[in-house]
Structures are given as structure tokens and as C-alpha cells.
């Protein structure tokens, strides 16, 4: 199981943003996407996750193995921490592993309504979803926003020791150093030219 991306071009709002992006990630490896704000990291990740079609190029990974984590956590404020996690586990047809609470320091918060959590705690709950759904290919968009240094370390440990160690793949857009032994890919050289064609009417065809 390898993630292969070949000459990928993506667009946002009808404007081409990234063109000619190619990379390959082997099982057990991660790739860090770098680049200034607005370069298209989120758009690339959304395209990889299948939320929008690529303009051109191919994305290849085994079907039904990927999961996406966006800026937003998808946490429901009126459900408790356990209910939130159980819901995602059931959607993916799994049970919540007991270790996930400890891995994301949520043990003391199990019965709390998610609406009463702090921003960092909510983020940890959002990330704990990744430990529950058991997907091998993760597309993570700024996973460490609003996390403190300790929680960043905790998340990096989860990625390295639980996810990647089990042969998983992670593509991560981030501005900070996660402490992972992973290659970095700067998207700046792949910035699309304004003359590249974008298909703003494509959605209706």
C-alpha cells in the first residue's frame, strides 16, 4: 500500500493553485507539506481525500483506506466526549479502543459535553477520532492548531508509535516542527501559473 500522486493539478474557486505536483509515500512514512499561507495546502489535501476532483493528474491509494482531518474538528458540542468518539467508531464499523483516551489525554473528560471543552481539548478530541476510525492513510490539515507543546508531542507520539509503526501513511500540512522523521515537501515551486486553465463551470457538467 503506497500513496502515489502524479502531476497533480488542483484548483480552488475556479482558480488553478497547484500544478504538476508528484510525490510518493511508502507505508510507515509521513510527508510534511510546507508553504506559505494560501499556497494550496488545504486544497491539495481536500483533493487527495476526494472532496474535490483534481483538474489533472492521478492519485493512487487503495480504496476505503483514507481519512481526512480538516481545520474544523467536527465535534458536536452537545454530545459528550465518549458519544462523539463512539459515533465516529460506529460510522467506520469499529469499537472505540480503550487506549485512545489515554493516548490523547481524554481520560478525565469522558463524560464531559464537548461544548464545555477548551479549544485545545476539543482539538485533542477531534484528533482522537483518527485513533478510533483505524484508517491507514491520513490527510491532516494543520492538526496542531491550538494545541500546547505537550499535546503536540502527544500527537506526534501517536502518529509515530501507533499509526506509522503499524504501516500507516500520513500527509500533514503544518507550519510547526512535529518532531517526526519525515521528508518535507515545499509547495512553492508547484504554484500554478495564472494562465493555467481552471474549470469554474465544471461543477455543473
Amino acid at each position: 500500500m503506497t500513496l502515489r500522486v502524479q502531476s497533480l493539478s488542483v484548483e480552488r474557486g475556479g482558480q488553478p493553485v497547484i500544478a504538476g505536483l508528484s510525490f510518493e509515500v511508502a507505508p510507515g512514512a509521513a510527508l510534511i507539506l510546507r508553504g506559505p499561507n494560501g499556497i494550496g495546502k488545504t486544497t491539495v489535501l481536500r483533493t487527495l481525500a476526494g472532496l474535490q476532483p483534481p483538474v489533472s493528474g492521478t492519485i493512487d491509494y487503495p480504496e476505503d483506506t483514507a481519512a481526512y482531518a480538516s481545520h474544523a474538528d467536527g465535534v458536536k458540542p452537545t454530545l459528550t466526549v465518549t458519544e462523539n468518539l463512539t459515533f465516529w467508531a460506529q460510522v467506520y464499523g469499529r469499537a472505540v479502543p480503550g487506549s485512545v483516551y489515554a493516548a490523547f489525554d481524554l481520560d478525565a473528560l469522558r463524560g464531559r459535553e464537548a461544548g464545555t471543552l477548551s479549544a485545545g481539548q476539543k482539538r485533542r478530541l477531534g484528533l482522537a477520532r483518527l485513533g478510533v476510525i483505524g484508517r491507514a492513510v491520513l490527510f491532516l490539515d494543520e492538526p496542531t492548531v491550538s494545541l500546547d507543546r505537550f499535546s503536540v508531542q502527544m500527537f506526534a507520539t501517536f502518529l509515530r508509535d501507533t499509526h506509522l509503526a503499524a504501516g500507516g501513511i500520513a500527509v500533514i500540512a503544518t507550519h510547526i516542527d512535529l518532531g517526526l522523521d519525515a521528508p518535507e515537501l515545499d509547495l512553492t515551486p508547484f504554484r500554478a501559473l495564472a494562465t493555467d486553465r481552471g474549470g469554474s463551470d465544471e461543477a455543473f457538467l
Partner: protein
Amino acid sequence: MKALLIRDLRLGLRAGGGFGLGLAFFLIVVVLVPFGVGPEAAVLTRIAPGILWVAALLAALLSLDRIFALDFEDGSLALLATSPLPLEAAAVVKALAHWITTGLPLTLAAPGLGFLLNLAPDAYFYLLASLALGTPALSIIGTFGAALTVGLRRGGLLLSLLVLPLYIPTLIFGAEAVRRGADGLATATPMVMLAGITAGAFALLPFASAAALRVNLR
């Protein structure tokens, strides 16, 4: 699918979930009508089927924009779209959850409110039956409208404009069934049409809703 249904019902019933909003609206409209048209029992009996159906329809409309908007805002819609659950199934489940929190209570409350409007005694059964057959169509059509307008700021008005014309057949056959029931006429034709609209909407619209969601999630 079951997980999503249980979650949506839980969200609907907890604080701020909007359960009871449609029911309260239904109650208020039906209580206000006799004050507006006057207490003449014969007039109320005559207009009761139409008023009850219009009020139920508007009450169902009230909570439509919440179907996808909240999930869109907090990001869970994108996460659901990338999950193993097909968006078509998610649309059906959302419509079902909307019906259980809106259409079902409306149906059950309607006979009590029919009493306030001096509904003809023969019509109660047809009121209950026509609402039970028709309100699922309101939910699934509304889910389609909500899928079309998800992500739009203040999409509620546009949603109403899109959905109301699609509600008209359900309203016509629903109110007609009750009226015929009240007059002791045969009700089979409007009832069958109503059931047909509901079945057709459930068969076709989830695919349209899912397609609209995919476009809106880009």
C-alpha cells in the same frame, strides 16, 4: 446509518436542537386561526383540513435549514463525506431524523389541534393518515433543499423559495384527502397519490441531495 440516526436524534433532543420548535409553531398557528376568522363553527369546520395541512407544512419548513448547516459549519459534513457512509445514505438518515423530530410529532399532535378547529368527526382518521403518509415527503424534499443551500449565508429564505413549490403536490393531495374524508367521499385517490409522492421522493431525491452536497463541499 444507525449511528448517524441516533446521533442526529440525540442532537435534536438536547439543548438547542430545535425539537419542539415546529410543534410549537404548529400549535400557535392553529390556535390563532379561530381568532382571525371568528368563532363560527361551520366556517372552521370547512377550512380546518386546509389550515391544518398548511400549518404542518410551514412547521416542517421551519427546521429544514438546520439539517445540514450545523454539520457543515463544524466540519463534520466533510468528515462524513470522506467516511465509508455514502452521502446518499446520509441524506436518507438526515431526512428520517428530521421526520422523527418534526413530522411525527406534528402528525400525532394534529388530531388534538383538529379539535380546536372543529374538524368534522369523520376526518380525524384521514388527517392522521394523510399526515403520516405526507410528512415524510416534506422531510426528504426539504433535505434536498437543505443540501442545495448548505454553505450559503442566510440560505434559509432561498431554501424556502426552492422547497415550497415542491411541497405543493403534497399539500394539495394531503388536504384533499382530509376534505374528502370529512365529506364522506372516497379518499383512495388522494391517499395513493400522497403515498406515491412520498415513495418517489424517497427513491429519487437522496441521489440529488448527495450530488448537491458533493458540489457544495468542493
